[in-house]
């Protein structure tokens, strides 16, 4: 880990919030910048560990390529059930904001 990672600045936090689709106030940006910097500082110690010959672990019991057996599919939600919790719907569809509309 290079030293440039050591301190997060507000610009980076704004960019990360944007990537994560979170809208933050200026006050939140300032608070999270300080808190996330402290937490990231704590992570710096990982750089000490030599992992050159170490494989990564993403599945802890060692399973690989698990697929469902062919056969009957399980229960599926009916359209009305799938839509039951939607805040906005239109003729049996989820209603979303227009993607190409100008803000």
């Amino acid at each position, binding site marked *: 880990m290079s030293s440039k990672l050591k301190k997060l600045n507000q610009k980076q936090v704004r960019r990360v919030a944007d990537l994560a689709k979170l809208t933050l106030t200026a006050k939140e940006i300032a608070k999270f910048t300080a*808190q996330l910097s402290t937490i990231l500082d704590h992570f710096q110690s*990982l750089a000490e*560990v030599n992992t050159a010959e*170490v494989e*990564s672990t*993403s599945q802890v019991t060692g399973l690989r390529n698990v697929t469902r057996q062919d056969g009957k599919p399980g229960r599926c939600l009916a359209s009305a059930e799938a839509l039951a*919790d939607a805040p906005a719907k239109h003729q049996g569809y989820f*209603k*979303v904001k227009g993607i190409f509309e100008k803000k």
Partner: protein
Amino acid sequence: MKLNELTIDQAQEGLFRGDFSSVELVRACLARIKKADSRIKAFITVCEKKALNQAREADQQLRKGIKKRLLGIPVAFKDLFVTEGIKTTAGSQVLADFIPQYDATVVRRFKEAGAIVVGKTNLDAWGHGSSGENSAFGATRNPWNQEYVPGGSSSGSGAALAAGMCLAATGTDTGSSIRLPASFCNLVGMKNTYGRVSRFGVIAMASSFDCPGCLTKTVKDQAAILEIISGQDGADATMPDQKVPDYSRILSQETGSLKIGLPKEYFNRGIDNEVGDLVKKAIRKIIDLSGGEIIPVSLPHTKYAMPCYYILVPSEISSNLARYDGIRYGRGRDKFGDEAKRRIMLGTYALSAGYYDAFYLKAQKIRTLIKRDFEKVFSKVDVIMAPTSPTLPFKLGEKTNDPLAMYLSDILVCPVNIAGIPALNLPVGFSKNGLPVGMQIIGSQFSEEKLLRIGYTYEQATEWYKIKPKI
């Protein structure tokens, strides 16, 4: 003794013998909720009507002599387990009015065994926290002393069970969330091997870590429930094809002489004196009962466990919480609380272009090293024993302004989740000011039966579960 204070084992005997009915048992739990839950805040949703209806049905079945393993037993589900037709909030405003269309596998298995759902318990929103204070619906209080936290994130499950509001309560353990509340509330709680219990229908926190399970009053109850909820369901692809042992039957088998590993890294780390003394006393007791010896061991990568955990887990969180778009169900992303926002941003940062290798991949490699540390130790010892929390329960508000201090509460528990191995929290006594202390027994993958047997031997000789909080 009051009905709501019975263990599952005792309640079952009474129900089958006809000493009391399921309706009476459920009423006793509901009465306790009414009396104390405005202060304790263990529940987000109480299902009074539904529970009484289910209890009436259970009584009919009992009269017919039908025997199911949890017939008529009132239980509660952490509000991360989706329940068909019952509001499931994850402790967050995002899901404040979400009503699921299906049951989680764990919920379905409880119901099939005849259990009664009394309600859904409070938690740190999305499971993010060690104290219960990150709930959008108010912080849960510890029934042993209401100025203190009950431990999180399964805070409501711990408090509800300790306060006698149900006879068992589910939890999920991603980094501490079953063991810590069990430890802070004088309860038994097991973080099972990753893949022992299905994650289907449990709102995802960090998918390669999440382990659903249960908090119980006794080891005997823990074994009975593990038997019911374990094993493949065809809906969680990360479950190995592992036979489910008859946990309750093998419980009373002798453990044999034990080789108990004490990791020097766990006992070096500023353990509170009272906690350390009670844990060492419990270990001596276990050796008196079963025979065996203490073997000093080392888990050299322990100090990297916290940073490793807090890179991998927020990364998976940022991905899992990306699905909350407020379109198909739930409200908008502006409803996330501070802790969820912090973790989403940490994870997004760790996974973003340019940082992936330095953070995420590096942490995954360190995950391998931590897992190997445990494998090496388990080639020499049967189990590891250590405190669950390095400190006694802390007070509400003590750590809320310092996220890092809160994260460090999990320092002795989260390495277990990184390695995917099981660990059982056992009550081992009380501090001078009357707060519960817990110890964890850690084993290799799928060694739950060994942990339960050791726990059962100790429990029969100590019976800490018989001591109840005054509320």
